[in-house]
């Protein structure tokens, strides 16, 4: 691990207005995952869909980062890009996703080398029942993953390890569950199985894409408790993708707000929810129903997401729906993330350490 010679030269995107950090502070908080300027588009018959533009944020070891936004904001595309599961129609125009493993080596997740082993990432998906092979026993599916990671693993040993994993995700009566098929299990149990499958990959980073959507509230809470517990037990970091702000509020250390393929705000949960700076974040929080809201109190964000197939997308993709519009908002270049004054640090390390950044020319005061 190399130390940066001086804090100012740490990263080309030193944000304005941020308090500069010392070299020591920088070294201590080198992030596990650093996403830098990821720009991605899909080539389709009806044009290029500019799914992600200049996506930049980081994840520290052991923390839970929430990525929130409405449908179509690019959250899932981002996760697929990190896992290397993108369609052949996807083209990464620019950007890096630097992943630092526990042994100190680094990888660019977006450009996997063919001879390298798979990076220690795992992902769990929405609707766990359809995400599991319907005609294969749960135990067999676990054994498949275990044996693909360890070529010499025998059937019996794999079964033992599978049973242990099932136990770790708090499923009772493990032998019976191992011999069951996904359709014989409830949604919550299937999600636990999914988590067990992810754990079999010994991940250092877990990406959870809407893991609790479609589950009832009690099960939701139980699953999130499990994820948090596993995180703390093994130092595994988590990226939690969700459209549910309440869920993010409960479980995440920091939140990344996305809108139409852009990161619009990043910061500690308390800061984002307590004092949002981006008009979109503010609206998102305002529209989240609370326990005592009446129908009349419910708010909505006017307008729709811009059509990402358009040739000329505006530098700020929220400008069509924003009520704090300034003439400057229509001018290029694409608005970059900048530190909210007085929230600490400089550059990448500062963001990882908990600085509050916003990409807006007229942030909410």
């Amino acid at each position, binding site marked *: 691990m190399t130390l940066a010679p001086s804090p100012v030269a740490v990263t080309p995107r030193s944000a304005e207005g941020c308090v500069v950090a010392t070299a020591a502070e920088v070294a201590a908080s080198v992030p596990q995952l650093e996403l830098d300027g990821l720009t991605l588009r899909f080539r389709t018959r009806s044009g290029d869909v500019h799914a992600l533009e200049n996506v930049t944020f980081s994840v520290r070891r052991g923390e839970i980062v929430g990525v929130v936004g409405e449908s179509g904001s690019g959250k899932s595309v981002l996760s697929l890009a990190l896992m290397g599961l993108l369609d052949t129609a996807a083209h990464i125009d620019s950007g890096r996703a630097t992943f630092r493993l526990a042994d100190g080596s680094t990888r660019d997740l977006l450009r996997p080398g063919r001879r390298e082993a798979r990076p220690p990432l*795992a992902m769990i998906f929405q609707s766990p029942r359809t995400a599991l*092979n319907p005609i*294969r026993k749960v135990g067999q599916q676990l054994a*498949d993953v275990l044996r*693909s990671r360890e070529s010499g693993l025998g059937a019996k040993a794999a079964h033992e390890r599978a049973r242990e994993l099932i136990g770790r995700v708090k499923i009772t009566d493990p032998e019976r569950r191992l011999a069951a098929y996904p359709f014989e299990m409830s949604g919550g149990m299937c999600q636990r199985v999914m988590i067990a499958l992810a754990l079999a990959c010994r991940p250092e980073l877990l990406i959870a894409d809407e893991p609790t959507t479609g589950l009832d509230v009690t099960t939701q809470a139980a699953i999130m408790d499990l994820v948090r517990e596993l995180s703390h037990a093994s130092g595994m970091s988590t990226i939690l993708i969700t459209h549910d702000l309440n869920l993010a509020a409960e479980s995440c250390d920091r939140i990344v707000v996305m809108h139409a393929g852009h990161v619009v705000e990043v910061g500690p949960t308390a800061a984002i929810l307590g004092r949002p700076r981006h008009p979109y974040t503010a609206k998102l929080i305002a529209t989240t129903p609370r326990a005592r809201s009446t129908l009349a109190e419910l708010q909505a964000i006017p307008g729709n997401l811009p059509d990402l197939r358009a040739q000329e997308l505006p530098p700020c993709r929220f400008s069509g729906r924003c009520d704090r519009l300034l003439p400057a908002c229509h001018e290029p270049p694409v608005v970059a993330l900048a530190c909210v004054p007085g929230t600490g640090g400089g550059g990448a390390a500062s963001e990882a350490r908990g600085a509050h950044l916003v990409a807006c020319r007229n942030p909410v005061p």
Partner: protein
Amino acid sequence: MPADGARVVAKRIALGLANALPSLAGVVVITFILTRALPGDPAAYFAGPAATEEAVEQVRRTLGLDRPLPVQFLDYLRELARGDLGTSLTTGQPVLEEMAARLPASLELTLVALLLAGAIGIPLGVLAATRPGSLVDQACRVGTTVGVALPVFFTGVLLIYAFYFLLGWAPAPLGRLDPLLDPPQALTGFYVLDAILQGDPALAAEALRQLALPALALALVAMAPLARMTRASMLGVLGSEFVRTARALGLSRFQVLVVYAFRNALLPVLTTLGMTFSFLLGANVLVEKVFAWPGVGSYALEALIASDFAPVQGFVLIMGILYVLLNLAIDTLYAFVDPRVARGA
């Protein structure tokens, strides 16, 4: 297999049988209706075109055609139970005996054609699905579209022209074996198998050479729906969520493709196999005519042209029963392959 699994499968077979029985009943009823209840004088049919008035009356009395219809039906059932399918006018032999003697020829042809169609069609479909937009994919799509529009008798004729007349690779379409050779000892009725069992590989090769073109004619048409269904099913499965999960979990390409994707994609292909077999049983008649193949199809055909009705009726009945039993087999197989079916998800 654990006791629970065996019980599940047994239940499945019982259920299948319960479903098959009404179909079998329907088959029997329809074949009865075809002969007795349709317009025209059935006695005249069975007596033959050259019969005199008295002969027709005689036939009417012998076959009990002057009795009321429900009684006739019961007689029919009783005859069936005895295995009496009537007697052929042209040969004078019992229909059941003649059909039993000729069935192996048809079955050998059908099974080889089905094997060929599956061996080419299914992998082709898989290849086309895993390489969308490639040459293989385009070829598969064009091929299946054309294949479905191919008249099977025309394919046979074209193959004879190409491989017998032009290239000289195939033998003359004179039936199962060159007329100068003796057929092998009848153990299974399948010439190729019998010749091998007899220790005569040269004869087996000869029988195979004669089989090649008719089987190919059938297979070319049968492989189209198989390839098409395999491709569609595979494409659907490859885009499914659980395949994405399998990839995300780092399973090898082979595991994902074969164990996860293909096995799931196979389910609708099984159903298509059943329909393909039904098609083959019918198309058999056409191919047997083109290649002078001495099977049940050509037997029924010769009888049909000669207005000899009993063999035709027997043929329709037996084909119907065969198909019902085949569907039963496929249903049972399905229960083995798809646990959701077996355990009533």
